[in-house]
Structure formats: C-alpha cells, structure tokens
C-alpha cells in the first residue's frame, strides 16, 4: 500500500514534469519563430553550421 502511494506520487511528479516540459518546448519553438521572422535566422544559417 505504501509502495503504491509512493508510486502514485512519483507518477504525479512525472506528469507535472511533462507539463513543465511542454511549456519549455513552446518557449523554444516561439523563440525560433521570432528569430526567423525577425530575419536573425536565415536559410543560410543552417548550412553555415556544417563543413
């Protein structure tokens, strides 16, 4: 019983981590879009990262 309760807590924590993770994901995507629209990232940026 104690083991199950502990596990429930763990599962809840994992889920709240997934929620936080989704927010970070949205922020990261938003930054990329803003930089792209502002012209900071151009189609030449990606090829310039490689030899």
């Amino acid at each position, binding site marked *: 019983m104690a*083991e*199950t309760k502990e*596990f*429930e807590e*763990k*599962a*809840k924590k*994992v*889920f709240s981590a*997934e*929620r936080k*993770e*989704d*927010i*970070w*994901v*949205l922020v*990261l*995507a*938003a930054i*990329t*879009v803003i930089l*792209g*629209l502002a012209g900071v*990232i*151009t*189609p030449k*940026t*990606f*090829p310039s*990262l*490689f*030899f």
Partner: protein
Amino acid sequence: MTDTNGGIVKYIPGLILCMILGWMALQWDQSIHKWQKDYQESEKILKAYDAKEGQPFLSFAEYAAKSEEKYTEKLAAFERGETKEKPKKPHLLKEKDYVTLATTKEISSKFSFGERMIQFQLTYVAVLLLGGMIIRNTIGLPKLFQPGAVMARPIIKPGIILLGGYYLWSNLLKVGVFALILVFIFIFGTTVLVAFLGRRLKQDDGLMGVMAAGTGICGVSAAVAVAPVVNAKPRDFFYAVGTILLFGTVALFTFPYIGKALGMSEPVFGAWVGTAILNTAQLVAAATWYGHDSLLTANIINIVRVGFIPIVVIFCIWFYVIKQATAEGRHEKINKWQVIKEKFPLFILGFFVMVTLNELGVFTDEHRTIFGKQFLQIFFAVGFAGVGLNIAFDDLKKAGGKAFVIGFIAATLKAVLSAIVVILIGTEAFRVK
C-alpha cells in the same frame, strides 16, 4: 554529479553530448546528400557524353553556362504559366570534380558511397538511433550523461510545432478526418480490446489499465497519465513501459523497411506509423527516416492521437473505477473537465498556432524552409540522439508475463490491420499537399 545538484545543472552534460552527436549526424547527413546529388549529376553528364558518341567533354565554364541557360529557360516557362512546378536551381559539380570526371569518365567512389548510403536509408535518423543504441548497450552511458540524455528526447517537440508552418487548415482537416477515423478505430479500439482481454484473462486491473492506455494511444505519456487513476503498482508500470518500448523499438527499426518492401508511398507510410507506433519520439523518427512527406502525414495523426489522451484517461476511470464502484453499489463521479484540463498535452497548441500563422500568410517559402526543414532537423537530431541513447536492453527485458503477451499481440494486430486499411485508403487521402 548527482541528483543533489538539483536544477538544470545535472542535465547539461547529457544535453551537450546529444547536441554533439546530433551535429555529427547532421554533418554526415549533409555530406551523403551532397555526394548523392553529385552522383546523380555525374551520371547525367556521363549519359549525355555517351549519347554524343565520343565528342569531347565541355569545358567547366561551358558546362556551368549550359546548366544556367537551361534553368533560366525553365524558370521563364514557369513564370509564363506553362509549367506548374517552380524549377529548382541546378546542382553543379565542383570544378575539380568535373575535371576528374571528364578525365577518368568514372564516377567518384565518394559519390557512389553517398548514393549507396541514401539507398540504405542510413541518414542522420538511422545513424543517431542505431549509434545511440549501440553506445548505450556496449560501452554504456555514464551516469553523468543520463539525466541530460533523457531530457533531450522532448526536444523533438519544438520540431513538431515548427512543422505546423507547413500546413494549411484545409490540409489539416482533409487528413485530419482520416486521422480521426484511424485514431478512433485503431487506437481507442486497442485500448478497449486490451482492457477487456485483461478482464477475461483475469489480469490485474492496474497493470492492464496502464497497458491498455500505453498500447492504445501514446506509449509512455499515456501510461504515466493513467497510472495513478488505475492504482498501478510500480512493477505493473515498468512491465507496461517495457512492453511499449520493446514494441516501439522493434517497429522503429523494421517499419521503414517493411514500408519500402510493401511499396508504401510516403503519405501512406506516415499514416501507418502514426497509427501503429506507440510512442511520439519513435513514430516521428520512423516517419522522418522514410521521408518529409511521410513526416507531414504522421504528424497530423500524432497530434490527433495525443489529443485523445484525456479521453482515454476518462475511459480508464470509467472502466476501472466507476463501473467497478457501481457494481459494488457505490457511487463515483468523474470531473471530466478537470481530467481534460490536467491531461491535455499543451505543446499541440503551439502546432495549431503555427498552422494559423501559415494560413494568415505570415510565413514565406524561406520561413517554411527554415522552420519546417532546417531547424526541425536540429531539434530532431538532438532528440533522436536522446532516443537512441535511452534504448537500454535492460529496460526492454522488464517486459514480461501474460500482460506482455496481451500488449504485444494487441499492438501487432493494430499494426497489421492499420497497414491494410491505410494501403486501401490510398496515397491521395493522406497527402498533405
């Protein structure tokens, strides 16, 4: 470094490792794609030379000028509306490579190698997944890198959001209708089938609840969402996750080859993996491996599918809690709105915002290339490095027992039946553009 470090510090080494591996794999990918283009161009030049029966090769300057001239002609025809598709800029060999080809009349082995690698689909996706899996299960992944490698997997999600810039609402609705049908029949159907089979075979409710959600809808995320609801024990949870990961890993490495063997087009393959593979990261990897059009279709099915997580949770509450309580003469209620609010995957809202911005004409072709092809590859590469490094055979061994058999049979049945259905529905229904 241990957990006691707290904060984000513990994630940094693993994230840096995934970024380095991702960069190396993308460098490899860029090289083989360039060599493949060089191979195709060399082949074209040699064919033209053979057709002219012994006439000398053009000089490099003449070759470049001729290619440019042809391109200008095609572009003019496109601008006059005589052709529908805008021509692509010609891919020219470098002067040194052209001169070597003209002298030897043989295609460089480097170019043939690139062509061969693409034929075997050994792109950055395969390199990262296979490479990561081999590292993890041979030399092992030091503890220092493990938290960051786990954290790298969701970096696939910004890529999924950015891909939204490729769709119009009309595309989304067209494919979305089929996606809804597929999701409803196969994904919800598998959940219900596993739940009922579990009861029939007198399996533990906790275990079968997690397995039903996991094999039916969205792998580990759904299992995590359902676990507290059905009072799953830790052992049940790991059995279910082990089964889901084992099936996903087998599917990830075999489906692209099965798809090719069955002659599936990219949109059909995307619809298949979107329905049959249980985990977002694995299905995105398999679809990317197959091609960009495949990814566009798989992404819609996946978005619809993860949107169904709250509904599966509500089903599990009803099946395992409410129904049981009613049978025992007790009265339990579900706060449906609360479940939807708590379990809804937020990141898909970002995807819908991107689709709307595209519909409003905010993005140009350049933006779409930057977001939906270039930066998507960066996010995917880091994420796939995390996926590969987290395929540990020890975790897969945790799958076991009758529940494993039920889960595996249900997932396999879903894969076979959905393959038949998507092939019958055909390419046009799943083509995004």
